[in-house]
């Protein structure tokens, strides 16, 4: 079936879009960067992280919408950058940082981390909220993978990719709200699952929560993905 072509306006620019696709996809094709974290092109979208929020004009709604889950409509007018949107993304980012132990200097993902890179790009110079310092588990039972819940941002990428791409359904999220955690076999050990280091679920963790063993600090400062170049979008699996 041929997709119906429509036109939407993004930041004052007319953008060709296909009916049914998301605002994020249409904007991306037009070369407009919208920060994302839970979104990944290989996966379904859940709108979990709220980094990609945009303003849809003329809806009469005060709130912002996540562009990764909102489909385009013909004639839709979208704003992706404004002081208000910037403020909300920044606030959201600070909440993510304050909830867990996202301490970059001793994280092996530093320099290759999407959460950190989005914080750089948005100029997050500090966190206004009290850090919660939760005491979280590190699961090193797998021979090739470390799962550190201290660095998790509950984006659900591992859950979705294990289900949708790797076809293993290894990961799940347990608990409610701030007490949620990524888990395997309900509090089981990663080493007892069929997950491998080459699974997309491990490759596309946006933070240092899921890391391949043996690669820590193998790249020098300046050689890592986001040392010199700002983030443009989600990282590709190897």
């Amino acid at each position, binding site marked *: 079936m041929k997709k119906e072509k429509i036109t939407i306006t993004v930041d004052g620019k007319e953008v060709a879009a296909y009916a049914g696709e998301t605002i994020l996809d249409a904007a991306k094709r037009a070369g407009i960067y919208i920060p994302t974290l839970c979104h990944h092109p290989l996966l379904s979208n859940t709108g979990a992280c709220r980094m990609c929020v945009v303003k849809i004009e003329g809806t009469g709604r005060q709130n912002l919408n996540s562009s990764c889950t909102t489909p385009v409509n013909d004639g839709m007018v979208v704003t992706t950058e404004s002081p208000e949107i910037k403020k909300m993304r920044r606030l959201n980012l600070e909440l993510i940082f304050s909830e867990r132990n996202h301490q970059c200097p001793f994280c092996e993902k530093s320099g290759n981390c999407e959460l950190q890179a989005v914080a750089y790009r*948005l100029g997050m110079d500090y*966190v206004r909220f009290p850090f919660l310092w939760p005491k979280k588990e590190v699961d090193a039972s797998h021979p090739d993978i470390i799962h550190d819940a201290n660095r998790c941002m509950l984006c659900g990428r591992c859950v979705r990719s294990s289900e949708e791409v790797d076809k293993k359904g290894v990961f799940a999220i347990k608990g409610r709200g701030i007490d949620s955690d990524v888990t395997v076999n309900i509090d089981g050990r990663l080493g007892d699952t069929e997950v491998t280091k080459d699974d997309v679920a491990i490759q596309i963790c946006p933070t240092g929560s899921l890391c391949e063993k043996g690669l820590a600090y193998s790249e020098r400062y300046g050689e890592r993905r986001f040392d010199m170049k700002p983030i443009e979008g989600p990282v590709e699996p190897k």
Partner: protein
Amino acid sequence: MATKKSKPIVATCWLAGCAGCHMSLLDIDERIVALSELVDFSVSPITDFKELPEVDIALIEGAVANEDNMEVLKDFRKKAKFLIAFGDCAIFGNLPAMRNAFTVKECLEEAFLDTESTVNPNGIIPTGEDVPKLLPKVLTVPQVVKTDYNLPGCPPDADAIWFLLTELLAGRVPEPTEIPYRDFKFD
């Protein structure tokens, strides 16, 4: 100090941190000479002056881990026109805040009693008024006082420090995104 104020006064301090941020300040290399032409250094681990006067710019390295840190920081806030949280420990807690997963009692017992290499036959944990009490949790500088600027990095890049100081001395306060991308880092 009170007689003639020709140059802006810069003071720095080092709370719960490793001195790395101060090393990075020295790492501006020969520009330190230019900087000393532009400002007067007051209290700082580099100068060792003891009494903090009113200052124009203060750089605060380190997190707030004990009562002494708290007192020093509040004194700096009172006397500094422009206070900068300097580096990741000051801004995010970083290494000093790793103890926040434990109680103070657990930390002290680990350090003074339980560590294999410890020789402490009487089992004494140091106390007394000369020993600053540890706070229940390590705090960041912006959690304790209002900061006028936050320059992250472990340590902040020397070029970022130089950029920020020269901008401030020229009367501008740059947005974090105006710091060159390669110099605005959390590690």
